[in-house]
């Protein structure tokens, strides 16, 4: 029998830092009950959505890429020549890297380029526009819990832009189309949207996975690719100890054959869109994880995904990760248990999970021991210092320098959520260098005392002293965002 839970005092510091992206220097200060303020953010009608007609849908982005690739053979050869001729930057420092555009763009702008300005690379342009939309959303939120949820789920179901241009140009759209609509919705809906999304299909090679006995398999002598099937089981749903076997992986890969992306010729439908290609599908009933699936076509994969979403192993795996992302590197089994119970009881209602976290006593009482990851730290710094975020390029660079290149994790397990991963000497040094620069970019010279009061009202005396004794405003701002209270959440 559970004891009656008395909720600890909810502080604004916890609301801002554990749940959100930190307090903002600009804008009206929030007041009242911090829990209610977070709840209010969750109940915004369009919570988590980005409405920006200028951002292309995935098919639009891929069609742009198809056209660009076809027309740019010459241009690329020229750019390669420029690159090998040494047009790239000299050995750059952190600050210089952050302040300069990516090489791909600098070549376009270089004075050494031919007089006729080549069309800007749409991959870079769209990637940066998507980055800007994400940055604007995170900087603009009063607290930012929903945007933290977006980042969490986007990293859980990550794609990586390093896979190729077809992933880089759709990574932002993937987040907008497959993650954001469901951060407060149902896990199963997010799962379905993610796995069929062209960015994921490309990233984990399912777009070219072909049933060996399908018509396409017979003709082209191509075969099965298990990549997506394995990662769905291991990373997206059950977890590595979730009780599946190699036979399950292979069988699931057969189920997923035919899930692919329409090519530029548009033979199967709208170019750049997801499609189920029956010609590539390994037809027939399948047995995996102790169940029998006799559906035809696409419905078979959807049925497997629905069962995976409802598995108790998935509830445990997701709840543990969720608690780790927000509360502690090693969250107590009790909070994980409470979240898993909510997940199970609500059929994977992610909104209910979010509410449960806000209502959980541990979430408000656990000490702030985790280091902000680079995205969290940069957004928090931009909010705290009121920095101009119209140029997302700078933040994108900083993320790369800090070891968290946007939408570009090293593998399908995403970026680490544990503090140790970010607490490296090089990582901390880079934080110092970037903070040092951000301090100097701070405009209107806010008074350090006022800023500290606003951003870190609970700062320890040592932090207060260091900030107030700084020799200049920029130094004070940099010390503030490097302070343990700011770096930890």
């Amino acid at each position: 029998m559970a004891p009656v839970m008395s909720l600890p005092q909810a502080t604004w510091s916890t609301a801002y830092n554990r749940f959100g992206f930190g307090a903002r220097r600009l804008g009206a200060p929030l007041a009242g009950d911090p829990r209610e303020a977070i709840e209010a953010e969750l109940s915004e009608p369009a919570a988590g959505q980005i409405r920006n007609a200028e951002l292309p849908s995935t098919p639009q982005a891929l069609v742009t890429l198809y056209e660009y690739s076809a027309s740019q053979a010459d241009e690329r050869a020229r750019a390669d020549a420029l690159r090998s001729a040494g047009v790239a930057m000299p050995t750059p420092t952190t600050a210089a890297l952050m302040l300069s555009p990516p090489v791909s763009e600098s070549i376009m702008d270089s004075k050494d380029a031919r007089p006729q300005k080549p069309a800007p690379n749409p991959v870079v342009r769209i990637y940066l526009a998507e980055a800007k939309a994400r940055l604007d959303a995170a900087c603009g939120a009063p607290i930012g819990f929903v945007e933290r949820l977006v980042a969490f789920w986007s990293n859980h179901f990550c794609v990586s832009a390093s896979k190729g241009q077809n992933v880089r140009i759709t990574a932002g759209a993937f987040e907008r189309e497959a993650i954001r609509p469901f951060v407060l919705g149902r896990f199963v809906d997010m799962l379905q949207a993610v796995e069929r999304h062209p960015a994921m299909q490309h990233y984990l090679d399912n777009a070219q996975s072909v049933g060996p006995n399908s018509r396409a398999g017979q003709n082209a002598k191509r075969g099965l690719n298990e990549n997506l099937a394995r990662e769905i089981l291991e990373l997206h749903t059950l977890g590595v100890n979730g009780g599946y076997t190699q036979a399950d992986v292979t069988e699931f890969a057969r189920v997923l054959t035919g899930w692919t992306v329409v090519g530029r010729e548009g033979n199967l439908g709208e170019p750049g869109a997801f499609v189920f290609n029956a010609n590539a599908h390994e037809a027939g009933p399948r047995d995996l994880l102790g169940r029998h699936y006799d559906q035809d076509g696409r419905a078979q994969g959807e049925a497997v995904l629905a069962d995976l979403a409802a598995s108790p192993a998935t509830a445990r795996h997701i709840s543990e990760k969720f608690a780790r992302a927000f509360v502690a590197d090693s969250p107590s089994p009790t909070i994980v248990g409470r979240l898993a119970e909510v997940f199970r009881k609500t059929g994977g209602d992610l909104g209910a999970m979010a509410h449960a976290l806000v209502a959980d006593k541990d979430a408000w009482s656990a000490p702030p021991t985790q280091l902000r990851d680079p995205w969290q730290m940069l957004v928090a710094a931009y909010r705290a210092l009121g920095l101009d975020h119209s140029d997302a390029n700078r933040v994108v660079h900083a993320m790369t320098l800090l070891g968290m290149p946007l939408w570009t994790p090293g593998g399908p397990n995403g970026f680490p959520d544990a503090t140790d991963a970010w607490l490296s000497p090089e990582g901390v040094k880079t934080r110092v260098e970037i903070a040092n620069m951000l301090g100097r970019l701070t405009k209107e010279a806010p008074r350090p005392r006022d800023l500290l009061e606003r951003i870190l009202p609970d700062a320890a005396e040592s932090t207060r002293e260091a900030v107030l004794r700084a020799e200049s405003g920029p130094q004070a701002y940099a010390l503030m965002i490097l302070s343990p209270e700011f770096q930890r959440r």
Partner: protein
Amino acid sequence: MMLSRHPSRREFFGLSGSVFAAANLPRWASASGARDPRLVVIVLRGALDGLSAVGPLGDPDYADLHRELALQRDGAHSALPLDSFFGLNPAMKAFGQLYANKQALVVHATATNYRERSHFDGQDVLESGMPTPGRTESGWLNRAILALPVAERARGGALAVGYVPPLVLRGQAPVLGWAPAELGPPTDDFVGRLASLYDHGDKELARALRAGFEADRMINRGGMNALKAGGDVVDQMKKAATGAARLMNADDGPRIAALAFDGWDTHVAEGGATGRLAQLLGGLDEAIAAFETGLGPAWKQTVIVAITEFGRTVRVNGDSGCDHGTASVAFLAGGAVAGGRVIADWPGLKAINLYEKRDLKPTTDLRAVLKGVLADHLGLGTSKLGDAVFPGSANVTPMTGLVAA
């Protein structure tokens, strides 16, 4: 293009971008033969120890009170003699040469009217020109531009060096922005402050920080760390000055510029003729030299003013540094300066002569110096100087004779 906007990509490429920006401003009418003055204001943030920059060697209490930080007449690092009483920090060789050529002077025992010891408030008063801190909308240099006759103003662009313009040049008058391509790494002082903050409250971060910067030193600095660490700062100052001078030397370039150099808050291991302060002064010296070189013939019509928010204690503290004080020095250099002298109503260093028994007492209002430069170099009238430019300073008489006739 104003720097109050986000700096464009072009600006990050360096000078060419900013010259392009300058070309969009009204051209200076450079009628041949007409006076075409250049004014550079350098803000030394952190509170410069005037007593180790320009030592009162003839004061009987100086050596005892300022101890290991005091400059000396003799020895391996002897001060550069300025007159029978004052000696210049030997790190400032170029300034010493300009002084000998009567193109540089020092104002000693000077301070604004600010008498507390907060850097931020002190810099606020220094740069805003307001009688009290916290009214930071604009700086005195910007308001000085607005106070120029319209025809003169149309000739002028002003240049703020740095990604955020120094307060002294912020305001309604349009300002060009330019920053060296890189801001430079954090200084050793900054890392030291952070390390001591982490030591208090976060051992993990402290360990990572030390390891990070230690590795950096071993890789990049190979055993010369103290020297090279200072070298980074020196390099930054020189780069900023070189770029600013190049822009100001263009026919249609800006005539007024403001720069800010950080790092003067020497609470620990300040050093005197050698060490940290000397490295910083060496950087300032190189910056001044870079202006002389870069401005070419325009140097003749140039005044550079280097100022700080307040000075440091006369006595050395327990860490071989000095704490926040009151009066300090101001440096003036340039072909248009009536130089070769130290201007000081020396208050003395005996206990009864110190401000609050600890600081060099201010005997010259720094605003009088600045107003003197604005009056004689840019031709601003006394009433505007006492009202629009330095509000509430009508009783502070502009110092005359700073600029060569």
